[in-house]
C-alpha cells in the first residue's frame, strides 16, 4: 500500500460517508454532474481494501440506496449498478471477518431485514455478493438448497468473491460449520468447464479443506498458483 492509500485508509469513514451522499444525490437525479465524482470514488475504492467492519453500516446504506426492491425482485437501480456491486462486495468483505453474533452483524442484520424480504430474488451482476449477504443476514435462509445456478462469474470479481468466501468459511468454522451455500459455491465453481482461474480453484479447495478440518494457516500466505500444487 503506498502513502496515498494509507492516507485514504485513515480517512475511510468520511470518504465512505461522502461517497454515500454522492450516490444518493446522483440516484435522486439532483446532480448529474456528480457522476464523475462518484466515478473517482469508485476508482479510489478499487485501490484500497475496505474490509473494516466499522464501515459495514455505511456500505449497507450505500447498497440500499442503490437498490430497487419490487416485491421479491431485488435489482440495482439503473445507472447505479457499479456502485451497488462495489458496495455489496465491500459489505461482504466487512462482514466476512466478524462473528455471527457480533454487534456489527446484528446491526446490519436488523437494517437489512427491514428492507430486503426473505424470499428475495436477486438480479444483475451484484447478485452473487447479495446472495452471500442475504445468507449471512437471514439465519433461516442459510440452510436452503441454493445452487448458484444463475451465478455468472466475472473474472476479477470472481477472484475477490471466492477469496472473501474463504474468510467466511474460516470465520464460520470457528463458530460451528462451514455454511452449505459456501460449499456449494466451491462445488459450482470447480465444476465449470473450462475451469475458473487458478486462484479461484485454490480458494475453493481452501474452503473444502477448512470444512475437512485441515489446518490451512500454513497455505494462506502462499501464492494462489502454488496452493494448487499436488503432493
Amino acid at each position, binding site marked *: 500500500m503506498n502513502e496515498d492509500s494509507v492516507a485514504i485508509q485513515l480517512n475511510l469513514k468520511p470518504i465512505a460517508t461522502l461517497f454515500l451522499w454522492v450516490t444518493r444525490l446522483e440516484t435522486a437525479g439532483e446532480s448529474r454532474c456528480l457522476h464523475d465524482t462518484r466515478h473517482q470514488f469508485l476508482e479510489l475504492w478499487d485501490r484500497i481494501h475496505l474490509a473494516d467492519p466499522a464501515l459495514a453500516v455505511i456500505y449497507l446504506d450505500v447498497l440500499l440506496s442503490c437498490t430497487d426492491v419490487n416485491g421479491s425482485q431485488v435489482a440495482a437501480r439503473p445507472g447505479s449498478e457499479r456502485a451497488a456491486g462495489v458496495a455489496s462486495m465491500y459489505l461482504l468483505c466487512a462482514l466476512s471477518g466478524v462473528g455471527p453474533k457480533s454487534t456489527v452483524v446484528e446491526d446490519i442484520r436488523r437494517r437489512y431485514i427491514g428492507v430486503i424480504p426473505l424470499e428475495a430474488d436477486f438480479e444483475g451482476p451484484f447478485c452473487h455478493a447479495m446472495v452471500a449477504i442475504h445468507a449471512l443476514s437471514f439465519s433461516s435462509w442459510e440452510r436452503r438448497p441454493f*445452487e448458484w445456478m444463475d451465478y455468472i462469474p466475472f473474472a476479477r470479481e470472481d477472484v475477490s468473491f471466492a477469496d472473501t468466501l474463504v474468510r467466511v468459511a474460516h470465520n464460520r468454522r470457528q463458530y460451528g460449520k*462451514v455454511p*452449505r451455500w459456501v*460449499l*456449494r459455491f*466451491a*462445488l*459450482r465453481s*470447480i*465444476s465449470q*468447464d473450462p*475451469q475458473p482461474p487458478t486462484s479461484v*480453484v*485454490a480458494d*475453493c*479447495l*481452501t*474452503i*473444502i*479443506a477448512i*470444512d*475437512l*478440518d*485441515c*489446518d*490451512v494457516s*500454513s*497455505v494462506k500466505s*502462499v501464492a494462489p498458483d*502454488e*496452493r*494448487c*500444487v*499436488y*503432493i
Partner: protein
Amino acid sequence: MILTLVAEGLKAMAEAADGHSIQRKRKAITALFPYAVWRERDGQHELLDIIFHLFRAMVAWARHKALGPLLLDGRMFMWCHIEPFVTTLLIEESPDSLKQAIILASPYIPWEDFATKEPLIQLWAAAASTVPYTDDIGQSMVDTLLRIANDASPRPIPAGMWSWLNKRPPLPPVCWGRFRGSTQRVARAVRTLGDTEILKSYLLLIWSEWDEPWWAGLNEMCASLREDFNGIGMEHHRQDLLRQLDNVLGRLDLGPEHPYAKLDTHLIQRSKKRYGKLREVLREVDRETTVTLIRELPRLILLFSPLTTADVYRASLEFYVFTPTSMSIIFRVHNWVSRLLIVPLPVTQLAGAATAGRASCHSSVLQLSLLSSGSL
C-alpha cells in the same frame, strides 16, 4: 499444498473407515469430486481413488453397523448439484477412465432428483457399453439400473441395458438398487421384457438376506413364478431359483448371528415369511408340472405301442429316464409310431411309477414329453 492437505485429510478419514465422519463431511467430499475428475482427465488418479475409497469405506461401515440401505440414499450426497457437470463427462469424447469413474459413482447419484434425466440415462448407457467389464462396473450398473427402473416417471431405459442383469455381479450387502428394485414397478418392467434369462437373473439378484421384497413386488414375483416359470421346459430355471431361496432362507435362519438381528428381529421374521412364500409358490409350480407330466405320460408311452402296454411304460421310463442322452432314438421311434391309435393306459399306475423313480428323472422325462406332445 492445499491439495496435499486435503488429500491427506481424506486419506486419514478413509483409513479410519469411520462412516459417521465421512457422512458428516459428505458435502466437502462431493464438492471436491469435480476437481478430482478434472485431475483424472489429466491422468492423475490419486484424488478420485481416495474419494472412491471413502465411498467404499462408508459402505463397509454401513454393513458393519447394519444400518441398512436407507443410509446410502443418494440424497445424502450432493450429486444433484453437479448434474450439468456429470452430463459433460459422459460424452463420447471423454476418456474411458473418466466414464468408468462416473459409472462407479452412479449408484450414489440421486437419479430421481435429476431434471434432465432422460439424456443423462442415454449417455450413461452409451458410456457403459464402451467400458471394459469388471465386477465393480457390473455392480454399479445393476445397482443403478434397478434404481432408475423404480422411478415413478417414465424411464427410457434402452432395452440393451437390461442384459446387464445377466452378468449377475455380486451385490454388496447395502445396496440401494436391490432395496428399491424389488418393487412391483421394477418386477413388472422386467417381466414385460419377455426374456426368461433376464427375469431369472433379476430374481437371483434381488433375492437376498439383506433385503426383503416389497409387498406388491412380492405378489408380482409370485405371479411371475406361476406364469413365467411354469412348464416342463423351465425346470432348470426353477432349480436355480429354488437354490437361491434356500440359500437366502438359510442365512436368515442364522438368528442372532445375522447382521440385521441387531437392528430388528421383526425384519428378519418378515423376510423369512416373504421368501418362504416365494419358495412355497415355486414348489407349487414344480408340483403342478409333475402332475402335468403324469397326465402327458400316457401319450408318450403310446409312441412305443408295438410293445405290450405294461412293457412300454416300464421300458420307456427306464430307457428314456435313465439314458437321457439317447434322444435321437426318440425321433426315429416317433416317426414309426405316429400313425398308431391312442390307447388308454392306467394312469394311476404310471403316476406311482413316476413318483417312485429317481428324483433326477424329471428333467429327461419332461423333455421327452415335450418333444412327443409337440410331435403328436
